[in-house]
């Protein structure tokens, strides 16, 4: 998209009076934008640098600016203070289960909303979309009580099952199916004697790959980062997901900053890799509601 965009006030129409002052201001704008980008990335850099230093090195003057060699030590402290690998595995497990369920249920639901006419369709869709605007704190207290009632406290399913009822997922799938699955194809399959679920599973689902990829990425990332959910339902350190585990290492008196930074870096690295590989897909998926 970027390479073919015409520049509205392109260089060709720049007035002849473009003085050295104007040129200077353009260059300083470039510098400012570039410096801003570096400033955005700097915290990540220091997260990784600090992850390789001990607590005393991090809190010395001047603080470390380049990588050290205490990373493995820090990881060792992490594993002493926490069931860290278990926490990491649990984050991965919850993320994958949540993603799988969301993709299945939202593609089915989105397909129903996009391709069928049925009673209460508009009202139902409106209701689902309405909950997208609800602030997350509305759910904090009652969802704890429901989990308590169901006996799901300290159970991973308390995180990935409710997460699968994603209004955003329904929205994304419905949009995609309505715009890119041809109705004629569905009709033709029906005439050929394919059952309704067969049409979904064999005709529609394979066409949804791009949307499933986007929704999968977004769901996994938000599950991986989820803090309020586990904060409310997870009680024992063995059941902590990564954000909760890292938070539990913070203490007013004796925080192992090196270990905490190593843990944060381990929690952040997969996201940076995912973003580097699919930034376009992620950015457009996350802003799809705005752009329509």
């Amino acid at each position, binding site marked *: 998209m970027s*390479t073919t965009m015409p520049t509205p006030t392109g260089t060709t129409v720049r007035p002849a009076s473009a003085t050295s002052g104007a040129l200077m201001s353009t260059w300083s704008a470039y510098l400012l*934008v570039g410096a801003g980008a570096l400033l955005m990335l700097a915290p990540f850099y220091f*997260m990784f640098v600090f992850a390789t230093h001990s607590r005393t090195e991090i809190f010395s003057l001047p603080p470390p600016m380049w990588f050290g060699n205490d990373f493995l030590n820090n990881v060792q402290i992490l594993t002493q203070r926490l069931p860290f690998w278990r926490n990491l595995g649990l984050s991965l497990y919850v993320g994958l289960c949540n993603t799988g369920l969301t993709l299945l*249920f939202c593609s089915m639901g989105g397909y129903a909303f996009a391709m069928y006419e049925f009673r209460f369709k508009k009202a139902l869709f409106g209701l689902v979309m309405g909950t997208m605007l609800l602030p997350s*704190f509305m759910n904090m*207290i009652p969802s704890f009580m429901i989990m308590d009632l169901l006996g799901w406290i300290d159970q991973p399913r308390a995180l990935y099952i409710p997460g699968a009822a994603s209004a955003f997922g329904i929205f994304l799938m419905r949009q995609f199916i309505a715009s890119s699955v041809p109705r004629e194809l569905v009709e033709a399959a029906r005439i050929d004697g*394919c059952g309704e679920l067969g049409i979904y599973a064999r005709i529609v689902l394979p066409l949804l790959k791009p949307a499933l990829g986007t929704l999968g990425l977004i769901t996994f990332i938000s599950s991986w980062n989820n803090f309020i959910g586990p904060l409310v339902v997870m009680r024992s350190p063995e059941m902590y997901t990564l954000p909760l585990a890292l938070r539990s290492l913070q203490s007013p008196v004796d925080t192992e900053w090196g270990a905490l930074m190593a843990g944060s870096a381990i929690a952040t690295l997969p996201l940076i890799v995912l973003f580097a590989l699919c930034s376009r897909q992620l950015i457009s998926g996350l802003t799809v509601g*705005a752009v329509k």
Partner: protein
Amino acid sequence: MRLSLPSFLRLSPRYAPYALLAPFLVLFAVFGLFPLLFSLYLAFHSWEPTSGLGAMHWVGLDNFSFALQDEWFWKSLRNTAWLAIASGVPQHLVAIPLATFLHLAFRRWRNAMVGAYFLPYITSSVAIAILFSSLFSTDYGLINLAIATLRELPLLGALLPQAAVDWLNDPDSLKPAIATIVFWRYVGFNVVLYLAALQTIPPDLYEAATMDGAGRFQQFFHITLPSLRPMIFFGVTLSVIGGLQLFEEPFILTGGKGGSDQAGMTAAVYLYRNAFDFNDFGAASAMSWLLFLIVAALTWLTHRAFRRKDD
């Protein structure tokens, strides 16, 4: 290829949508709608989690009047408003010119730049808040160190704090620290929104304006800004909704307690503390509904504010 399923799975097109929607709708009802109704019910009851679900008592509007007379609730609302404005307004003031400049002057590097600004949005807010609590540390933190270095500069130096700032313990400094993190995390999201909107402005508008001798600043104020208005509405609404539910950054930065003099206690943090620290689920539910009403009212007001010029 066989195109048939076992006969019990064959549905008529009439019932198929219900079958397809069923799994989602069941979860949506149980974990999306029911909690909402339940929290409304709870807001009119008193309940102590230790005494079981049977121990709920109808108390009418007591929880609401308690919340409205609670000084800490008001304080948490003021904190939240302060943070929402201090982190939200600069996001848009920076994102709009930034997106405009990226749109006009960047081609090959645009995606890389957008990526750099967007990256904080997808990373764990807990990891980020933990990192920033070390960057903001008083004696050894990089942020105070950077300020101390910049202080040597003429002019700019005079504007900066003259001593090391106790970001995380001084009530007056905690809020700017939180707002900085929130700004850093969300500014890139807004840049992407505005970039998308900028790409829909027809280039001939600018060409015509250039013909008429309009300078770049005039074009920005007379073409770009008015065209962006719907997106500004949308972006500001998202910032309002997001700002009023600010939870993770202040929660981590203050160790879950709200900070000295409760300066970092946002409404969402106070809700959480009411329920899980003070065991007052009824009051917490009432507060969540009051806060929801504020969010809804502000969304509506933003909508009106940006609509008016069209009429």
